[in-house]
């Protein structure tokens, strides 16, 4: 890098220059915007390497298994910087989400050493961990020789660190003292409302703050805004229907999926009176105000309907609303965000979170080198690069959330986004009970929800049947 460019990048990284000023000055020096981004990546990566032998794994080749996602785009945009810093070779396979986790399961269950590092969600580690497919990363985090002193593990949001650590005991509290760190948080999403400002203005309503208000606002939207349906939530026959808005609202009433007995046994908790009341509201909301083909809705349909102006709001991942406010969507610039506590008596929202994380394969032959890469990919410097230059939101590090450049950028383009996040973040965590039957039970929960919405079974009866089935499965697995 030439000295002038280097000085400008450094000034930008130090916060002395805005991104716009940097790009303008780079342009004057004949550097394109894309090249400027690369230079920023190199500059920030240099900061990561300071005081640490960044070349200790020079010549080692790693292979990553990645899901097609904006986080992956941010990684690839900055990967050359890592290669230059470390002298390592990094290759990767990218799969769309529809088949991604099948590929991970196939690779790990066959004990293949092909992939060293892969993207995962915290829930998946409840399967991968007990199966012995992934490595407890505490060994590396706590090893001063292998971990960069600048890595600053404590800077990672505490709720996310805890949510990705589990002791492997079914029902064991996440983040307990004996927990194993199965993965490192990379980017995360919490669940709140994203809504279309124009449609809300047209109906003369403001963002609802609880479930009762939500149903009232939906009723007003359905009469005052033609050609759209009021609220989008997921509905496919999958565990992914349960974890976003549904569980966030459910948990806000203090309801749980399972209860852990004094003897450590698990039992279903979906058929309490409180749970039944919440389910009744949720089912009514979908039947009266949701999309007609709700039972086929994944995050994709929920998001694109908001972006295309087919729905007035969604109760789903905040980053889904974020992405729908850009990228050439019809409603770009019209999306706003609001925190949502379903329970009117609750002090604050309690969003369940989805955490895209990085895990290390237990079958990797290059674990030290893999950890070297993981430190960089989950470090502050790459986080800042992604947050400032790309769509690497929500960041998992406090240092990135505190970054004025990032906050200014979000505040300018995504009004209300920071507020919904900041209000909700203290209560944001995984509200599921960690246990190996997670996917079986939540998929059955989603199927039951589908039956309730289709009026195939009344809510109370459906939940009693679900609870009975869950208890049988837990007992069969020796957990109940």
């Amino acid at each position, binding site marked *: 890098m030439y000295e002038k460019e280097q000085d400008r990048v450094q000034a930008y990284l130090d916060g002395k220059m805005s991104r716009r000023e940097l790009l303008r000055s780079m342009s004057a020096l004949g550097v394109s915007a894309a090249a400027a981004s690369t230079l920023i990546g190199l500059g920030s990566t240099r900061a990561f390497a300071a005081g640490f032998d960044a070349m200790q794994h020079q010549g080692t080749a790693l292979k990553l298994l990645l899901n097609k996602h904006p986080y992956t785009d941010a990684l690839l945009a900055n990967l050359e910087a890592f290669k230059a810093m470390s002298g390592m070779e990094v290759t990767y396979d990218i799969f769309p989400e529809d088949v991604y986790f099948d590929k991970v399961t196939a690779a790990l269950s066959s004990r293949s050493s092909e992939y060293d590092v892969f993207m995962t969600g915290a829930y998946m580690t409840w399967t991968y961990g007990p199966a012995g497919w992934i490595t407890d990363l505490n060994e590396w985090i706590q090893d001063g020789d292998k971990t960069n002193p600048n890595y600053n593990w404590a800077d990672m949001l505490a709720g996310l660190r805890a949510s990705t650590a589990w002791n492997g005991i079914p029902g064991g509290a996440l983040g307990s003292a004996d927990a194993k760190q199965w993965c490192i948080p990379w980017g995360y999403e919490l669940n709140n409302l994203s809504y279309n400002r124009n449609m809300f203005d047209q109906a003369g309503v403001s963002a609802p703050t609880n479930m009762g208000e939500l149903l009232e606002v939906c009723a007003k939207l359905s009469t005052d805004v033609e050609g759209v349906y009021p609220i989008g939530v997921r509905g496919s026959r999958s565990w992914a229907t349960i974890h976003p808005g549904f569980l966030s609202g459910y948990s806000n009433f203090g309801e749980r999926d399972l209860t852990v007995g004094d003897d450590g046994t698990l039992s279903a908790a979906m058929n309490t009176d409180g749970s039944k009341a919440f389910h009744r509201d949720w089912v009514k909301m979908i039947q009266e105000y949701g999309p007609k083909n709700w039972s086929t809705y994944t995050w994709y349909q929920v998001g694109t309907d908001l972006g295309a102006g087919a729905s007035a709001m969604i109760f789903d991942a905040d980053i889904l609303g974020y992405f729908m406010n850009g990228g050439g969507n019809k409603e770009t610039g019209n999306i706003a965000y609001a925190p949502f506590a379903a329970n009117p008596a609750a002090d604050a929202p309690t969003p369940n979170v989805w955490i895209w994380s990085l895990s290390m394969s237990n079958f990797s032959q290059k674990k030290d080198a893999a950890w070297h890469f993981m430190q960089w990919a989950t470090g502050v410097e790459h986080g800042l690069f992604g947050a400032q230059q790309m769509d690497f939101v929500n960041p998992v590090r406090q240092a990135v959330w505190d970054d004025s450049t990032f906050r200014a950028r979000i505040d300018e383009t995504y009004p209300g986004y920071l507020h919904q996040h900041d209000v909700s973040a203290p209560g944001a965590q995984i509200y599921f009970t960690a246990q190996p039957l997670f996917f079986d039970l939540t998929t059955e929960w989603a199927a039951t929800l589908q039956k309730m919405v*289709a009026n195939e079974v009344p809510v109370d009866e459906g939940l009693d049947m679900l609870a009975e089935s869950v208890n049988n499965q837990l007992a069969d697995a020796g957990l109940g």
Partner: protein
Amino acid sequence: MRDAFRRRALPYLLSLPALLVCIGILIPFGTAIYYSLQRYRLNLPHLRKMNWGENYLKFLTDSEFWNTLQVSLAYTGLTVGLELLLGLGIALLLQRSTRFNNFVSILLLLPLMTAPALAALMWKLMTNPNFGILSYAASLVGFEDMKWASDPSTALLTVLLVDIWVYTPFMMILLLAGLRSLPRQPFEAAALDGVPRTFVFFRITLPMLTPYIITASLFRLLDSIQQFDIIYAMTQGGPGDTLMVFQVEAYLQFFQATNIGKSAALLLVLWVITFILSNLFVKQWLRLREQAQGAG
């Protein structure tokens, strides 16, 4: 001496590739049987043990299994039956080898060239209540609130439509080939005698075409009872358990629940059903062939 050895070894050498293929098939098959006799979940490795027939015995009292069996058989029966009727009808219409008929028969093959999963996604868009052209068409004839695959009462109909759209051309092309290869003499004699068309169809065409019908139906049956892609892409087996067929259930048990034992047992039950059905078909086909040879 060497010649004698070669002569003796030749049959074995010639059958070696078939033997290797057979072994290649039997190894995973044997493994599946072995797994199906185990309590084997990847996420509960400490519980792994032989439980012999317990996975199968549990099916007897499992309402979900019986639902899966019922849905799989209903889906298979309806798709094969409807595709056979439609395919035969179209083949009869295109029976005469004219330039127009040949062009149309090629055109009708296009859906067969579409990957079923892609066809399912295409139909998913066409049946979208917000902008789907089929939803719009349904609204014009009074079905304003048609929910297609999202509603348990219409979900089966929707996936049947996709299957029929994709696979009817397969039936059509096999039956068309059969129709065009039938000997002309019986038809010419019937025409000379002034035999009514319905009599010709039921007493000459259909019996002579039966081996082709059985072959085409067998191919479709084997494929249909193992249906996965259309149903998974459209509803993942839902709404509820409305479309839960064997392959989807086995897939979910393996990849989502990592319950290898149950998944393998489900697939072996499917194999037994497929084996019985194909045996019935093949025996019927052989019987008809013998009849035809005897008559000849």
